[in-house]
C-alpha cells in the first residue's frame, strides 16, 4: 500500500517537474517587449518643467509632441543620473543617439575605474524652444538654469555635496519613436529673473515678533485632530460638523490658532488627490469663518530624504501650497514634524539639505505664508534658523527647565519662537503606576500658562482630545506606549472637559 502510494506520488512529482521545465522552455520574451511602448515617468522623476516660449523659427510645436519631447528629455536626465549613480549603461541607448551615448559611456567607464559614484537630481528645468524642424524630426532648445544637486562618493565614502546651476543647450532627434539627445552642451547660467509672483502677506515677521496685519500676533494655539480620527484628520471620518463644533470649543477657550497635519501618502504623494485638497479647503474655510489661524504641518509619516525622491516631494508640496497660497486662514507651513528624529538613521546632512530645499520650493510657490519647522526639542531648533520665518520647537521636558531652555534658544536666534507642542498625559494605570493624574495634568498646564503669560510667549498645546485609538506609527505598538499617547487631551474620550481644560489658554 505504502509502496503504491509512494510510487504514485513520485510519478506526480516527476510529471509536475517535467511540465514546469517544459513550461519554462516554452515561455519566451513577452511579445510587448519587442515594441517600444510608452514608458511612464510618473513617480520616478518629476522635476518642475516650465517651457518658456514655444514660438520658434521652424514648425509650430504641437502640444502632444512637446509632451513627448519633455518626457523623453526628462528620461535622458533620469537615465544619466542613474547611470552615474550605479556606473551602469542601462537605458542610455534609448535616450541618447549613437554618437552622443559614447561620451556617457566614457564618463561611466572612468568613474567605474576610479570607484566614483555620484547621486544626482535636477530640481527645475526652464526650457525655451529654439527650433523645431519642418519634418518634426529635430528639435533644439535651451534649458535655462537647471538646478543640479549631487552627492559625490569615492570608494562608497561621501566626499561632498554640491549644488550647481547651469544652462544646457540640447538638440534632440526623433528616432524610432524616441526623442534622443544628439548634442547637449553645458553653458553658463543666465541671470535669474526676479520672481514675478507677487507676495501678499497678512503675516509678517518683524524682528522677534510675528505680526498679523501689522499687529503683534502671539499664537495661543492647540494641536488638533478630531477625536475619532487621531493622525487621520482627512480620512474617511472627515466630517464638517464635527470640525465646526471643535472649532467652536477652541474659539470659546480663548485660543486663536490650531496646528494640523498632512500625511504624504494620504494626500497622494506626488499626485495630490483632489478630494483631499477639498477636505483641507473645507477645514481651512471653517477656520477662517471662526477666525482661527492654522499652521499646516506637511510630510507627516514621511522620512525618505534621498535625492531620488526630491522631485516627488517637491511636486507634493508645490501642489498643496499653490492651492492655498491665497487662503486667509493659514499662518504658516510647517515643513515637517520633528525631522531631527531622523538625523541618526537618515543622515543629518541629508535631512537638512532636504528641508532647506523644501523651504525654497514652498517659498517659490507660496510667498504669502510663513514657513517653520517643528523641531522636537529646543536644542535642535537652531538648525536652519536662518531659513525659516520663525523657530518652532516642542517641549516635553521638566517644567523647571523651561525658562532656561527658552532663554538659551532665544539668545541664539533672531527669529520669533513658537512652542509648538507641549503637554502631559493624564495617565496612570497598570502600565504606569507613577503617571500623572488628571489633576496633575491640570497643575502642569496651569504652571505652563503662567510662564507663557509672564513672558508673553506663543504656544500650541498637545492636544484637544483624548483619543480612543492611536496608530502604531505614532508612539509604538506596545500598550504602555500607546495608552500614554491617548491621554494628552484637555477633553476626554466621552467629550467631558478634564480639569486641565481650565488652563488651556491664558
Amino acid at each position, binding site marked *: 500500500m505504502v509502496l503504491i502510494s509512494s510510487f504514485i506520488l513520485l510519478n506526480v512529482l516527476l510529471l509536475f517537474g517535467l511540465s514546469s521545465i517544459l513550461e519554462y522552455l516554452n515561455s519566451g520574451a513577452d511579445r510587448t517587449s519587442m515594441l517600444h511602448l510608452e514608458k511612464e515617468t510618473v513617480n520616478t522623476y518629476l522635476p518642475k518643467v516650465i517651457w518658456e516660449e514655444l514660438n520658434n523659427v521652424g514648425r509650430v510645436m504641437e502640444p502632444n509632441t512637446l509632451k513627448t519631447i519633455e518626457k523623453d528629455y526628462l528620461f535622458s536626465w533620469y537615465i544619466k543620473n542613474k547611470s552615474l549613480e550605479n556606473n551602469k549603461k542601462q537605458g542610455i541607448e534609448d535616450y541618447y543617439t549613437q554618437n552622443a551615448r559614447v561620451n556617457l559611456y*566614457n*564618463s561611466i567607464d572612468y568613474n567605474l575605474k576610479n570607484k566614483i559614484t555620484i547621486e544626482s537630481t535636477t530640481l527645475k528645468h526652464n526650457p525655451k524652444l529654439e527650433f523645431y524642424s519642418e519634418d518634426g524630426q529635430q528639435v533644439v532648445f535651451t534649458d535655462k538654469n537647471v538646478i543640479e544637486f549631487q552627492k559625490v562618493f569615492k570608494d562608497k565614502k561621501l*566626499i*561632498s555635496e554640491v549644488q550647481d546651476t547651469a544652462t544646457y543647450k540640447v538638440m534632440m532627434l526623433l528616432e524610432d519613436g524616441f526623442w534622443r539627445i544628439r548634442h*547637449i552642451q553645458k*553653458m553658463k547660467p543666465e541671470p535669474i529673473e526676479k520672481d514675478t509672483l507677487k507676495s501678499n502677506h497678512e503675516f509678517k515677521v518683524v524682528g522677534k515678533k510675528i505680526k498679523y496685519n501689522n499687529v503683534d500676533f502671539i499664537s495661543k494655539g492647540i494641536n488638533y485632530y478630531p477625536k475619532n480620527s487621531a493622525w487621520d484628520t482627512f480620512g474617511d471620518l472627515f466630517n464638517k460638523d464635527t470640525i465646526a463644533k471643535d472649532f467652536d470649543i477652541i474659539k470659546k477657550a480663548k485660543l486663536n490658532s490650531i496646528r494640523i497635519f498632512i500625511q504624504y501618502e494620504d494626500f497622494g504623494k506626488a499626485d495630490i488627490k483632489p478630494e483631499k485638497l477639498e477636505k483641507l479647503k473645507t477645514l481651512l474655510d471653517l477656520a477662517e469663518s471662526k477666525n482661527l489661524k492654522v499652521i499646516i504641518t506637511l510630510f507627516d509619516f514621511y522620512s525618505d530624504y534621498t535625492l531620488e525622491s526630491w522631485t516627488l516631494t517637491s511636486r507634493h508640496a508645490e501642489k498643496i501650497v499653490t492651492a492655498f497660497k491665497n487662503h486667509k486662514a493659514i499662518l504658516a507651513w510647517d515643513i515637517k514634524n520633528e525631522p531631527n528624529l531622523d538625523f541618526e538613521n537618515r543622515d543629518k546632512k541629508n535631512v537638512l539639505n532636504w528641508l532647506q530645499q523644501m523651504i525654497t520650493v514652498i517659498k517659490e510657490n507660496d510667498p504669502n505664508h510663513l514657513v517653520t519647522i517643528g523641531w522636537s526639542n529646543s536644542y535642535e531648533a537652531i538648525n536652519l534658523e536662518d531659513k525659516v520665518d520663525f523657530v518652532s520647537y516642542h517641549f516635553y521636558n521638566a517644567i523647571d527647565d523651561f525658562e532656561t531652555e527658552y532663554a538659551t534658544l532665544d539668545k541664539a536666534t533672531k527669529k520669533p519662537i513658537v512652542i509648538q507642542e507641549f503637554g502631559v498625559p493624564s495617565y496612570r494605570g497598570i502600565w504606569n503606576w507613577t503617571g500623572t493624574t488628571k489633576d496633575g495634568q491640570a497643575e502642569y498646564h496651569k504652571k505652563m500658562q503662567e510662564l507663557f503669560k509672564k513672558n508673553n510667549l506663543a504656544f500650541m498645546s498637545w492636544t484637544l482630545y483624548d483619543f480612543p485609538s492611536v496608530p502604531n506609527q505614532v508612539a509604538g505598538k506596545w500598550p504602555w506606549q500607546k495608552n500614554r499617547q491617548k491621554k494628552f487631551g484637555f477633553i476626554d474620550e466621552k467629550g467631558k472637559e478634564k480639569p486641565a481644560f481650565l488652563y488651556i489658554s491664558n
Partner: protein
Amino acid sequence: MKKAINILFLLCALLLLAFGTTLVSNKKVSFELVSNIKTFTAGNSIELEFHSKSEKEKPQLFIIHSYGKTLLDVTIEKGNYIFKIPENYCKKTGDVSWFLINKNETRNSGTFEILPNDATKTVVENYLGPRTILAGGKEFTMMVTVPTDGFDNPKQENTNVILKHQFLQNVTNLNLKTKDFIAWYDIYSPTKSGKMLVSTECDKIATKEIETEIYPNIATNFTIDYKRNHEFADGNQITHFTTSSIKDQYGNVVSDGTLVSFLIKTKNNLILKTFGATINGIASAQLLHPDHQETYSVKGFVTGIAESNSITINYKPIISTFNYSFSNKNRTLTVGPIKSFMNQLVPDGIKVIVKVFHKDNLVTTLQEDTSKGIATFELSEDFYKEKNYRFEITTLGITKQTETLNYELHK
C-alpha cells in the same frame, strides 16, 4: 636686566609662533587658481593648477561636464596642486564647472569653457525634410545642417555654411550661419515637378547630395470623351471613357495613379460609377452597354479636387418587339428567338423577366438568360396550381402582356 628682557622677548616670540601655527592650522585652507585661462580647445589636454599656503593638503576636484561628472585626485608639482582633466572630458565642448573639495568642503569653485576644435576635420550632418513636396512654391523642404568638429562637437555660433540646391538648370548657392548648433534653410518648391538636389559645405568639407521629390500639384479641371463599338444597347459591348491629360495649374501632368471617378446618371436618375487611375495624366475606365434604350450623362471627378465636362451618350434599342409562344399545355413559355439590329441573334445572357399574375395578383417573378436567342420558362403543375394565369414578359426594355391562359389541373 637686559638679558632678562631679551629672554622674555624670545619667549614671547616662541609662544607667538607656537600659537600662531595652531591658529593657521585651525583656519580653513584656501586654494587659488594659478592660471586664469578660461577657455580651452577641444582635444587639448587641460590642467587646473591651484596654489595654497598649506602644502600638506589632499584636495579633490569635482567637475560637472556636459556628458558626465567625476572626481579628480590631485598631483603635487612644485608645491602647487594640479588636476588633470580626463581625456574624454577634454574632447567635448561646453562649460565645465569645477568644485575644489578639501576635507569634505568646497573650498573654491569656478568654470572654464571648452571650445570646438576647428583644426580637426569638419563633419557635417544634414537633415532634409519633408522629402516629398508639391510643386507651386507654397510648400517647402527644410534643410537642417549641423556642422561639427572632429570630436563631434557642434561648431561655434555664426560658423559659415554654404547650402547648394539644384533644380533643372538652376543651381543656387546660399551662405548661412549657424545658430543653436544648426544652420537651416527653407527651400520652396518650383512650379515644375521633378527632383531637387541639396547639399552643404562647411570649411571646404562637402556633403553628399540629398534629394527631395517635387510632385505635381493637385489636378485641375479636365475633359472626358468616350469610345464604343456601336451605339446599340445590347448589354454586351463596352463603352470606354478616357480623360484628357490631367495637369496641375502649372502644367505638370498629375502623378500617376491619380484616381478619377466617372459618375454616370441614367435617364431614371440612377447613379452608376466606374473608376480609372491616371497613367501619364490619362485615366480610362469602362462600362458595359445597357440592355435597353438608355441615355447616360457622364462626368469625371478627381474627388474633391477637379471635375470634367459632362457628356451625354445615347444607346439605341436593338429590338422593337419579340416573339413568344406557349407549348406543353401552356406549361412551357418560350421567349424568342430574339433578333438584334442586324437580324442576328442577340448575344447569350440577355435577361428575360416574366411576371406571373393570377387574378391581377403578382404570384412570382421569374428570370432567365437567353441562350442562342431563346429563353425558356417551365411552369410546373406542382407550383402553379391555379386555373388561370396571366404573364408579363420584359426583355431589352420591351414589355409584352399575354392573355389570361387557362390551365388543366390533375385531379
